[in-house]
C-alpha cells in the first residue's frame, strides 16, 4: 500500500486558479463542480420542505398563505427532482468514478461533459430566477390547463429552466454511454465491469430516450401558455390528459434515473464491506437493464383516476407489477451477498443497511399503488407522497450518501469521522421513518396531497411528520459539517482505505489528473476478494 501523506500532483492541486476549475475538462473536477451545485439545490429544496412541514404542524394554515404554500411545495419538488435527484448520483459520483472504474483517462467527450455542467447551471439559474420572481405554483407536474391558462406564477421561467436542464441530463447520458462502449481499458469486458457501471449504462438509456420527450412536452406547454397555441386546450378539443401521458412518459422512467445509479452504488458498497462478490452478478446487471427498459412501459399508472380507459389502466397495472420483479431480484441478491460475508460495519455500509430497509418499504408500497382497485382510493393522497419519498429519499438519497461516504476518501484524499458518519446515518434513518411512515397512514385515511389546510383529525400524524423532518434536517447538516471538516482537518485516507477491489482504488487518492500512470489491463472480475483486505489507513 502507498503512503498516507498526500502524494505529489493530484487533480485537485495541479492548478489552483478559478479558471482552471471553470474551464476544466477533467471529469473529476466536473464531478466536484456538480457536487457544489447539487448541494446548493438540496439545501434550497430542504428549506422549502421545512416551510411545508412547519405549515402542516397545525391544520389551520396559519404559517404562510395558501399561495405561498403552493409555491413552497412546487419549488421543493422542482428543486429536488430536477436539480438534486436526477443529477446527484450520475453527475457527481458517476462523473467522478466512471472513467476510473473502467480504466479510462476521461469520459469520451470531456468538452461536452463540461458543457453539460454549464447547461445544468444555466437551467438552475433560470429556475432560481423563477423562484426570485415569486416562484411557481403548479406543482412540479405542471398539469394543464392550470399551468397554461390559470396559473399566474412564473411557469415560463421554470419551464425554460427544466427544458435547459434536460439537455444536461441527455448529454451526460450520451457521454456515459459512449464512454462505456468505447473507453474501457484492455481486458475490461462487459461482464468484468463493476455493477455501478452497469447501473450508469442503464440510466443513460433512460436519460437518452426519455428526457427529449419531457423537453418537447414542456416546449408545447410553453407554446400554449405564451403564444396561445392549442395543443392540450380543452376549449379547442384538446385533451389535458395527453399532457399527462407525455409528461409521465418521461417522468416515470425518470424515477429510474434517480434510483438505478444508487442501486449500483449499493452493489459496490455491499460487495466491498462484505468482502465477497455480489451474489448473482449477471442477474443484478441485467435487472438494471430490465428496469430501464420496462420502466418505459408503465407510465400511465399515474393516470388511473385521471380519465384514461379502464382497459388501458389494466394493461399498465399489469406492466407495473412486472417491473417490480427486477427490483425484488436486486434486493434478494443484495441480501444473499451478505451471507457468509465478512461484514465490516463502516459508515458507507451503515448507509446501505438504511437503504435496504427504506427501499424495501418504498418498493413494496409501490405494489399498493399499482393495484387498480386500491389506487383509486390512494391516488393523490399522502400515501403516494410517502411512497415516493421512501423511494427517492430512502432509496436514492441514502444510496447517494452511501456512495459519497464510500468514494469521499478517493475524491478528497481525506477521511471523515466514522463515528460521526454512523451516527448521522442512524439519525437520518430514524428521522426519515418518523417523517414519512405516518404519511402512509394519513394517505389511507384519505388526506389528499398538496393541502394547505387539512381536517383536524389528521393533526397528530402531521406533527409526528414535522418532528421527524427536523431530525432529518439535523442529520443532513451534520453530514455537511463533518464532510467539510474532513477536507480541512481530516487525516489522509490512503489510496485504498476500504481494501476494496476496483480500478478506482488502484490509483492514488486523490487521483492524478490523467487518472492512471499507465493504462491498466484487467484480468479478472470486479469483486475478486481473494486476498486479505487492506489495513485501515
Amino acid at each position, binding site marked *: 500500500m502507498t503512503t498516507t501523506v498526500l502524494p505529489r500532483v493530484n487533480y485537485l492541486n495541479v492548478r489552483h486558479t478559478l479558471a482552471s476549475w471553470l474551464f476544466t475538462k477533467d471529469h473529476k473536477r466536473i464531478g466536484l463542480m456538480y457536487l457544489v451545485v447539487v448541494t446548493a439545490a438540496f439545501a434550497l429544496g430542504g428549506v422549502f420542505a421545512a416551510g411545508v412541514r412547519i405549515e402542516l404542524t397545525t391544520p389551520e394554515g396559519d404559517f404562510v398563505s395558501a399561495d405561498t404554500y403552493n409555491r413552497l411545495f412546487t419549488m421543493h419538488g422542482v428543486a429536488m427532482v430536477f436539480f438534486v435527484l436526477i443529477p446527484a448520483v450520475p453527475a457527481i459520483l458517476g462523473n467522478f468514478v466512471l472513467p476510473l472504474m473502467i480504466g479510462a483517462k476521461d469520459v469520451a467527450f470531456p468538452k461536452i461533459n463540461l458543457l453539460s455542467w454549464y447547461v445544468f447551471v444555466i437551467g438552475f439559474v433560470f429556475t432560481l430566477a423563477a423562484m426570485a420572481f415569486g416562484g411557481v405554483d403548479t406543482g412540479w407536474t405542471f398539469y394543464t390547463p392550470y399551468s397554461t391558462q390559470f396559473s399566474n406564477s412564473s411557469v415560463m421561467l421554470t419551464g425554460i429552466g427544466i427544458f435547459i436542464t434536460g439537455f444536461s441530463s441527455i448529454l451526460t447520458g450520451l457521454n456515459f454511454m459512449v464512454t462505456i462502449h468505447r473507453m474501457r481499458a484492455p*481486458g475490461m469486458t462487459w461482464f468484468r465491469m463493476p455493477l455501478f457501471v452497469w447501473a450508469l449504462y442503464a440510466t443513460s438509456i433512460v436519460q*437518452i430516450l426519455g428526457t427529449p420527450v419531457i423537453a418537447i412536452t414542456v416546449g408545447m406547454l410553453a407554446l400554449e401558455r405564451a403564444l*396561445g397555441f392549442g*395543443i392540450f386546450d380543452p376549449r379547442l378539443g384538446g385533451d389535458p390528459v395527453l399532457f399527462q401521458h407525455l409528461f409521465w412518459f418521461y417522468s416515470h422512467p425518470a424515477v429510474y434515473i434517480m434510483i438505478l445509479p444508487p442501486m449500483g452504488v449499493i452493489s459496490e458498497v455491499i460487495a466491498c464491506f462484505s468482502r465477497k462478490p455480489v451474489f448473482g452478478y449477471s442477474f443484478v446487471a441485467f435487472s438494471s437493464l430490465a428496469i430501464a427498459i420496462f420502466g418505459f412501459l408503465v407510465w400511465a399508472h399515474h393516470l388511473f383516476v385521471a380519465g384514461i380507459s379502464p382497459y388501458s389502466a389494466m394493461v399498465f397495472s399489469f406492466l407495473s407489477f412486472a417491473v417490480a420483479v427486477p427490483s425484488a431480484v436486486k434486493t434478494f441478491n443484495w441480501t444473499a451477498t451478505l451471507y457468509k460475508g465478512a461484514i465490516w460495519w463502516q459508515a458507507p455500509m451503515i448507509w446501505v443497511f438504511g437503504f435496504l430497509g427504506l427501499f424495501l418499504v418504498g418498493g413494496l408500497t409501490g405494489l399498493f399503488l399499482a393495484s387498480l382497485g386500491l389506487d383509486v382510493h390512494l391516488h393523490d393522497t399522502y400515501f403516494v407522497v410517502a411512497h415516493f419519498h421512501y423511494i427517492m429519499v430512502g432509496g436514492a438519497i441514502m444510496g447517494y450518501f452511501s456512495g459519497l461516504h464510500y468514494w469521499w476518501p478517493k475524491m478528497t484524499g481525506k477521511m471523515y469521522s466514522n463515528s460521526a458518519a454512523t451516527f448521522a446515518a442512524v439519525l437520518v434513518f430514524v428521522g426519515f421513518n418518523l417523517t414519512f411512515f405516518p404519511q402512509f397512514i394519513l394517505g389511507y385515511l384519505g388526506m389528499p396531497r398538496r393541502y394547505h389546510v387539512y381536517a383536524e383529525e389528521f393533526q397528530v400524524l402531521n406533527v409526528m411528520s414535522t418532528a421527524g423532518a427536523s431530525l432529518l434536517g439535523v442529520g443532513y447538516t451534520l453530514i455537511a459539517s463533518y464532510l467539510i471538516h474532513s477536507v480541512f482537518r481530516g487525516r489522509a485516507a490512503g489510496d485504498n482505505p476500504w481494501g476494496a477491489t476496483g480500478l478506482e482504488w488502484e490509483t492514488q487518492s486523490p487521483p492524478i489528473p*490523467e487518472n492512471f500512470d499507465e*493504462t491498466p489491463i484487467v484480468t*479478472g472480475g470486479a469483486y475478486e476478494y481473494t*486476498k486479505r483486505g487492506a489495513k485501515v489507513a
Partner: protein
Amino acid sequence: MPNGAVAHADPHGPASAAGFGAGGHDHAHHPALQHHFQTLDQQHEASTLGMWIFLVTEVMFFGGLLMAYLLYRVWYPEAWSEGSEELDIVLGGFNTVVLIGSSLTMAFGVRAAQTGEQKATVRWLLLTIGLGLTFLVVKGFEYYHKWELHHIPGPNFSFEGPHAAQVQIFLSLYFGLTGLHALHMIIGCAIMGVITWMAHKKRFTPEWYTPVELAGLYWHFVDIVWIFLFPLLYLVDRARQLS
C-alpha cells in the same frame, strides 16, 4: 494490492477490449487525436456512436409532437383535412425535392472527404448549404402567407370552417413540427458553415474526416424528419376533400 484482478502493464500490450488497437502509439500523433483517446479509430468510433445516440434523442424529441399529431388526427380527421387543404402543396413539394437534393449533395460531400478530394468537399458542402437556405426561404414565405391569413394559432387566429377550433390544433402542430424542423435546419446550416470552413482550411484527410461525417448524419436525419412531415401535414387528408 488487495486483489489479483488487475495488473499494470504497458499500454501497448496485446489485450484489447474497446478499440485499443495494438500499436496505437506507433506512428506520430495525428493533430486531431485528443489526449484521452489511444487511437484515431477509437476517437472516430466514439464520435459516430455519440452522434447516433444524439439522433436517438432527436427522434424522441419529435416523437412527443408526433404523438399529439397522431391522437388528434385520429380524433378529428375532418379538421385535419380542412387544415392540410390550407397548406401549399406546390411549395411543400418543391421543398421536399430541395431537401432530398441537399441530402444527395451532402452524401457526395462526405464521399469527397473520404476520398480526400478537398476542393470537391468544399463545393458539395457549399451546395448543401445553398439548398438548405433555399428550403428555409421557401418555408419563410409559407409562414408569412399564414401570418397574412391570420392562420397562426393564438389570440389573432381566425379560420372559416365548421371545425375551426380543431383546425387551430392542426395548425398549432403544423407550426410546432415545422418550426422545430426549421430550427434544426438553421442549426444545421450553421454547423455546415463551420465544417465547410474547416474543409477549406484542409483540416480533413482520408484518415480523419469525422466532423464531415457527423454533420452528414445530422443533415440526413433532418431530411428524414421532413420526409415524414411532408405527407403527414401537406398530403395525408387531401383526398377526403375530393369526395
